[in-house]
């Protein structure tokens, strides 16, 4: 009995120690990331390549999922508001939810699943095949060459994708409003303008920016410290996705808290 408890404590201790070491390594990587962000060489070409990569990977899914997310929100909200004969408000309510929460969070999830996972797998493969060592041995920092462009591109791309998500989500909602609830277009637009403020959109964009930074640094970090052949690559990829999703949700809560006070 005692032994079980002890070994349980031991493994808990190991887990905590592992987390602390991980946190230390993550901090070091972030420090190096900022070091190289403001230093030559600025790899503009690589940043654009990553823009294309993140955009290409995510755009079709963002398009499809935003239309359906907007539509399903419109459906549910329209139904409830219909009880009070206030279907005209459905666009406004959907818009508020999309702008503040759903657009940045859903985009964060989509980009994590598509681009983040691919980044983690790619860098992990380079780690286990000694390609990162080779790069370093040639006097080129892998952080500068691989991680900085990915983080910059993801961070800047996320607000853009989030804006697309918001716009197309509203289109999805509008179509439902038109077809199912016969909402008048001018009412839909007027209510939307009345309830969704520019500051809401700004708040959502800020979240998207932060999520972009989080998901790309976590993906690169997990790839960078991968170990142990093909299995290690798989593990790094899974861990990157899980850690990114959780962190996005947790950070989302705290940003919302701060934004409400501000």
């Amino acid at each position, binding site marked *: 009995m005692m032994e079980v408890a002890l070994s349980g404590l031991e493994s808990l201790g190991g887990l905590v120690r592992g987390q602390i070491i991980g946190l230390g390594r993550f901090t070091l990587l972030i420090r190096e990331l900022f070091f190289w962000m403001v230093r030559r060489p600025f790899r503009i070409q690589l940043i654009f390549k990553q823009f294309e990569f993140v955009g290409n990977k995510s755009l079709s899914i963002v398009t499809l999922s935003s239309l359906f997310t907007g539509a399903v929100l419109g459906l549910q909200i329209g139904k409830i508001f219909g009880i009070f004969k206030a279907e005209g408000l459905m666009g406004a309510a959907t818009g508020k939810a999309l702008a503040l929460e759903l657009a940045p969070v859903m985009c964060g999830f989509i980009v994590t699943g598509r681009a983040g996972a691919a980044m983690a797998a790619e860098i992990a493969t380079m780690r286990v095949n000694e390609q990162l*060592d*080779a790069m*370093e041995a*040639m*006097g*080129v920092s892998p952080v500068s060459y691989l991680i900085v462009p990915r983080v910059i591109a993801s961070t800047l791309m996320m607000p853009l994708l989030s804006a697309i998500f918001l716009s197309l989500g509203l289109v999805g909602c509008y179509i439902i409003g038109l077809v199912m609830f016969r909402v008048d277009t001018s009412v839909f637009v007027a209510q939307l303008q009345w309830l969704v403020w520019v500051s809401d959109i700004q708040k959502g964009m800020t979240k998207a920016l932060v999520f972009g930074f989080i998901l790309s640094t976590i993906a690169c970090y997990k790839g960078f410290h991968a170990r142990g052949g093909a299995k290690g690559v798989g593990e790094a990829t899974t861990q990157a996705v899980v850690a990114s999703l959780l962190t996005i949700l947790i950070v989302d809560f705290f940003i919302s808290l701060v934004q409400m006070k501000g």
Partner: protein
Amino acid sequence: MAIPPGQSQSKTHTIPVVCFKNVRKTFGNQQVLRGLSFELQPGEISFIIGRSGEGKSVTIKHIIGVLHPDVGEIFINGELLTRAPETSWIRARKNMGLLFQDGALFDSMTVGENVAFPIREFEQLTPKELSLRVESLLDLVGLPGYGLARVPDLSIGERKRVGLARALSLNPSLLLYDEPTTGMDPLISELIDSLILEMQKKIPGLSSVVISHDIQSVLRLADRIFFLHEGKMYATGTPTEFRANTDPIIQQFITGSLKGPLGQPIA
């Protein structure tokens, strides 16, 4: 009697290209380097030999600074680089070229882009100059016209030769080869061996460090041999000194006999 390190080295006081002082390295609970000390002289071809898993690749990675010692000091061209900032290492590495044991090519790039990678980073060349330079490097390693080939399609021997072309691309003054001929047919091995000699003749002051299991080419090419055993430099000396050495461990290693103090391979 093993020759203690340092004893048979030249009396002239040149600064060694590489100097390890009591270097220790542990992975988890596996001690790989256990107080490793040695000096490599400039202008020489030094061979590092030793059994599989003794830490030869680990040693070469310490020279180029992608691994760092737990304890001990490493000097490159007389400069203490242990615990030096990364920028000092980056400067030192520009004069080094390393051929990794498995080539370590970037598999998202073509062969030509791999060879061009260090040149692009450190020199401003026109596209024409760059492609000429890449072609001549690929010619040198016996892979003419491979510029557009994809890395995943190459054989291991071809990968290593591309890795060698890449290591040579910035005209390094210290060339490190990790098992350049392992896994190659006799003709290509011969080509690589003569390439090592040729580079040495062509580039004045070039120092080469070669890890090899091919004892015949070691005895033929080496200016000095370093025998790594149990995490330390067990013996150093010229090929003649090694042949004459009566230490049973060294004799067993040179003759490749299964009987002796090294015991039988586990596999």
